């Protein structure tokens, strides 16, 4: 198929930083632009008004871009008007804001693909779906990793290998940017003349990745965990970490880009004029998370920590991929530095 070949070539273009900047800024005409902005030594995804605000060399953010912008921390999923005939359900207006999420790292892109499996499965969530459809995802290969990162061990980075489910993949080639267009709409939006990448550029990209791979410090074997996990669910490594260090504060879950758990609750005011059915990020580390009449399936702190560790590192059967993308946020933001990879290593010993 001749046509496809030629166009495929055009899907990969090298452009200058300046060109990228003006393209991205141009997108603002129709899209709200969200990108990583440096805040102290951390970055944060927020709305930006010019490309200069964006820090393309950022290493990580506390809150993940996908979960934060696609599954908001808290939102109304339904409301009820109180009428003489009783409450009448009202759907919230679907979000229509068109958005660009710029600079999404490989791990966070994988996390969005994971969230898709949850929220676009048998029962698609209308709000998530609307946001997802309205959001252009411009991914960005990492140029630096943090001491907490382990994406390389779980196949989620540092360079993005997924071929679909997002729109653009950028690689910072020291001043020039390699642009790989991954969706039809990206192809429509991207009309910049650039230089087609040559063999040496691809090679350079490969080298960059190899170089980057050397800078990871985390190291554990992710396969073979299943047997250990299921045979020793009360392994001392889990027990001791849970009792000695875990605060049940749920920071790990909150910052996790794939943690999708949420609570649903009805908010009613004293006036009783209307009711909002809300959803809010929830966490399996909360002691009430698995409580039912007559008991709590994860009454013990150890059980809750185990749920997190197993769900991230094992339970691949759930969606066919691991629950972790190796972003390292749960390690970075755990007040006592609990490290699921260390727990796994301990258990594998």
């Amino acid at each position, binding site marked *: 198929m001749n046509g496809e070949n030629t166009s495929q070539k055009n899907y990969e273009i090298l452009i200058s930083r300046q060109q990228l900047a003006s393209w991205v800024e141009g997108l603002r005409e129709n899209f709200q632009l969200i990108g990583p902005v440096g*805040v*102290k030594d*951390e970055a*944060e995804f927020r709305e930006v008004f010019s490309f200069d605000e964006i820090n393309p060399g950022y290493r990580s953010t*506390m*809150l993940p871009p996908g979960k*934060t912008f696609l599954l908001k*921390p*808290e939102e109304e999923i339904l409301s009820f008007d*109180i009428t*003489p*005939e*009783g*409450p009448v359900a009202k759907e919230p207006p679907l979000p229509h804001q068109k958005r660009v999420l710029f600079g999404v790292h490989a791990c966070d892109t994988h996390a969005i693909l994971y969230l898709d499996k949850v929220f676009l499965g048998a029962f698609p969530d209308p709000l998530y779906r609307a946001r997802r459809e309205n959001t252009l995802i411009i991914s960005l290969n990492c140029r630096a990793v943090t001491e907490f990162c382990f994406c390389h061990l779980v196949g989620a980075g540092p360079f993005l290998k997924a071929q679909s489910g997002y729109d653009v993949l950028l690689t910072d080639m020291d001043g020039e940017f390699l642009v790989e267009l991954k969706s039809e709409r990206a192809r429509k939006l991207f009309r910049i003349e650039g230089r087609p990448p040559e063999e040496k550029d691809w090679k350079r990209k490969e080298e960059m990745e190899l170089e980057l791979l050397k800078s990871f410090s985390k190291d554990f074997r992710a396969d073979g965990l299943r047997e250990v996990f299921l045979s020793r669910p009360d392994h001392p490594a889990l027990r001791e970490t849970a*009792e*000695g*260090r*875990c*605060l*049940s*504060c*749920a*920071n790990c879950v*909150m*910052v996790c880009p794939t943690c999708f758990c949420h609570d649903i*609750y009805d908010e*009613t*005011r*004293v*006036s*009783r004029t209307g009711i909002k059915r809300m959803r*809010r*990020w*929830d*966490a399996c580390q*909360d*002691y*009430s998370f698995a409580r039912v009449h007559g008991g709590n399936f994860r009454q013990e*702190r150890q059980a809750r920590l185990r749920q997190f560790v197993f769900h991230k590192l094992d339970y691949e059967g759930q969606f066919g991929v691991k629950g972790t993308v190796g972003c390292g946020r749960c390690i*970075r*933001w*755990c*007040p*006592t530095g609990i490290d699921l990879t260390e727990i796994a290593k301990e258990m594998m010993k």
Partner: protein
Amino acid sequence: MPFSSGEKWRPRAGFFKFSCCTGCGFELAYFQRSLEDTLKSFDFAFFRLASSSGDFDSLLDLALVEGTVTEPFQAVELKKIRKNSAVLYAVGSCAIAGGIPAIKAGGLELEIEKRAYQKKLYRLTSIRPSVLGDYVKVDGCVRGCPPGRHDLEEALVSVLLDRKPEFIEYSVCVECKMKGNICLLVDEGLPCMGPVTNAGCGALCPSCHRACYSCFGLMGQANIPALKDKFRQLGLSGEEIERRFTLFDGLKLKK
């Protein structure tokens, strides 16, 4: 049924105060957003702060009780309130955890009393501070010092709708993260009590760059030793750590 019929049931409520700053009572009056509706929805049979004519012995659908029990007569009153009330919620850290009035329980109480009174000391009838739950069954806790909006509203709504309340039961960190604050404990090494403190305030302190001082009290199953360890690693002395955990939860930790 609460919504389908036009007629509105006006539950009879009482607000009672023991030893405290009356802040919870005021929080109800600070409740601008819902004050008017609250006054219209409830028949306040007893609310000393707002009315000079209450009937202490009235039978109630809802009793809200603030304050720590620090006098024998309060314990007697509390039992009476309990007997008269279908639902009794403890309101505020004083009533739930002891709060500020219970700091005293952490020291030599007579010494502490002596510093405030010399002559009158022998006439005082103060007893060791204790929480409502020590004397009566409490149907729910509206936490905070002062209580947060959500739980306060939930307490009132639960009675209006005649259903069980669902109060917030997770850490301040959860609210802090949802606000997107960079963690003070992790990033700056400030001794923040957020990880063990029950949420409900909206993570006020961390949002204004201050370490949480646990005014909402410890959450259920708080891992106290683990956070103490963490504070030790940050270089806090044993005394400094102890103080942080006994500001609002002195009673729980003494036991």
